């Protein structure tokens, strides 16, 4: 039920502080997902003998994880203190967990990408030894990266949901599915751009399942939470998410139709990546908008409080005004008024 839009506030000011995060954070939501999806694609390609797809996906993963690190550090208020993140490992802080997931993933993805350097090394001497051992090392590191990848793709949903920003918190059941699906779809997009068309079959299947998961979960976020879904359908967030929906659909169609067409594959891959990025920016903006307008804070809480009062449960406001106490107060007021009239 959508509560009535009537509510009281302090001069219409927000109750909550909106996140101070800049656009680097939704950009990271995209690059982190792209890195995670690409590492999974690379590991699968490696195990099924698709060397071209493997190379493209590994390089995408390492590039995206590098960009992620840049975005995250640049968004800090004190970037030179980024390593303070490594002082602790706190399960109650999704950002702390994410730091460790990203660090482990980044190291593995880096080694896996280095595994692609083998063919460029000379065949003899110490470089020859490196050249011969690189495929095995690359595979082990690539599988490790793939092991961390699902956590990297989904923890960011917990990162946003574990805040007081009403529309992020309320969407916590669906957000990880939006981000998991988007990670697969964007990795598919990168592979359709960069990998040989003949090896891109798994990428097309990534595109279909990823986009389906992303769109279905995003639909629940945009419609399933009453008043708190509203910020995802209005304003900038609404425009971003509507554009993302259209581009995702076009990208999937292009990916399926362009099985033998390099140009169409690449174009649809580009659309899938842009669509996934727009979804992240839309989800980000929706949560920010919900924190800036006090109605999204006050109305759901007021409704919860009133429901509790009606059910006769404590409303946490101490010494509620009982009928007897109200009567006592009324009597005192009446007595005071009577005295006032006598005096005048």
């Amino acid at each position, binding site marked *: 039920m959508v509560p009535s839009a009537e509510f009281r*506030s302090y001069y219409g000011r927000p109750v909550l502080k909106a*996140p101070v*995060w800049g656009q680097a954070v939704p950009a990271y939501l995209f690059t982190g997902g792209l890195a995670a999806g690409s590492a999974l694609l690379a590991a699968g390609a490696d195990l099924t003998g698709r060397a071209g797809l493997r190379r493209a996906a590994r390089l995408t993963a390492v590039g995206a994880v590098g960009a992620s690190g840049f975005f995250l550090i640049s968004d800090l208020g004190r970037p030179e203190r980024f390593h303070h993140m490594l002082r602790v490992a706190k399960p109650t802080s999704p950002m702390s967990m994410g730091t460790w997931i990203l660090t482990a993933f980044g190291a593995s993805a880096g080694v896996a990408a280095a595994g692609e350097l083998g063919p460029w090394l000379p065949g003899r001497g110490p470089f020859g030894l490196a050249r011969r051992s690189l495929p095995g090392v690359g595979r082990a590191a690539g599988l490790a990266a793939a092991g961390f990848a699902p956590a990297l793709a989904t923890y960011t949903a917990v990162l946003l949901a574990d805040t007081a920003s009403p529309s992020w918190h309320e969407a916590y059941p669906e957000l990880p599915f939006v981000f*998991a699906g988007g990670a697969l779809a964007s990795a598919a997009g990168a592979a359709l751009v960069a990998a040989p068309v003949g090896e891109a079959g798994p990428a097309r299947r*990534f595109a279909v*399942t990823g986009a389906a998961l992303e769109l279905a979960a995003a639909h629940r976020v945009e419609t399933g939470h009453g008043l708190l879904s509203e910020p995802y359908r209005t304003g900038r967030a609404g425009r971003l998410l509507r554009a993302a929906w259209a581009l995702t659909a076009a990208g999937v169609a292009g990916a399926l139709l362009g099985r033998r067409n390099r140009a169409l594959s690449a174009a649809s891959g580009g659309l899938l990546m842009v669509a996934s990025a727009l979804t992240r920016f839309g989800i980000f903006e929706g*949560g920010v908008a919900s924190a800036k307008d006090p109605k999204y804070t006050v109305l759901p809480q007021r409704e919860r409080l009133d429901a509790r009062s009606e059910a006769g449960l404590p409303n946490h406001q101490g010494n509620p005004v009982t009928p007897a106490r109200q009567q006592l107060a009324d009597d005192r007021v009446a007595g*005071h008024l009577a005295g006032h009239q006598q005096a005048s």
Partner: protein
Amino acid sequence: MAVSHSLYGQIEPAADAGYQDPQPRMGFFTDTSVCIGCKACEVACKEWNGVPDDGLNLLGMSFDNTGQLDANTWRHVAFIEQSRPQLLGLPGSAPPVPASQEGGADVRWLMSSDVCKHCTHAACLDVCPTGALFRTEFGTVVVQEDICNGCGYCIPACPYGVIDQRPGDGRAWKCTLCYDRIGDGLMPACATACPTESIQYGPLDELRERAARRVERLHETGTVEARLYGHDPADGVGGDGAFFLLLDEPEVYGLPPDPVVTTRDLPAMWRRAGVAALTMAAAVAAAFVGRAS
């Protein structure tokens, strides 16, 4: 320090954080029914804590030209002017009513000094990824300025919109409940400066008893709209270390009516992320299994 951290429920925060021999939990009881809006608390806080000024603004919000709690405002006096049928509170406390308005509307002026709530379950502290925010032996919540790297996570996590990033500095700042004073047995600067004892500092148990007596007395003398806010250990944040006596709904003062610490749902959030991660892995396996192209 062993970490066995509760995310929800009624606890003693300092003991829960791992202190073997914690001090009594200290806090504020802000009785807004005696606040006169002098802003001595705002000034004393800025002076003692060396909080930078944040401009000279005219906000058009009654006498409030501060606006809100933020990185540079750790006490904020709210002013609310209400036109409503005259309330007869404590006998003799009401201003004389002009003849023209007799029986009609009157202006009621609410004033309240807001501050960090030092929650029992503090979301800012839970989500801090560097350990810069910590629980003191007094059960309060403090930011270590030499650790904070300005990640900003505490800011949207706070259900009261208290903590904020300081412009030009990048780090997060908020009320420390004068951690540097109370360890030496002094009162926090704001409570020391308050001329009407609207801001009362002391052991939380004692303050809660005092507040219950005060609201009882206000009800008996006709101020039936008096209610406590943040005093109840059964509420959504496990009770506030700094709680209030209000004369209207909390949202009128810019306070959330029924805040719940976001980390209450964190185990459920991790579970959903785990299911999504497994779904993702299954989708990847399906994309590669049994197909040649």
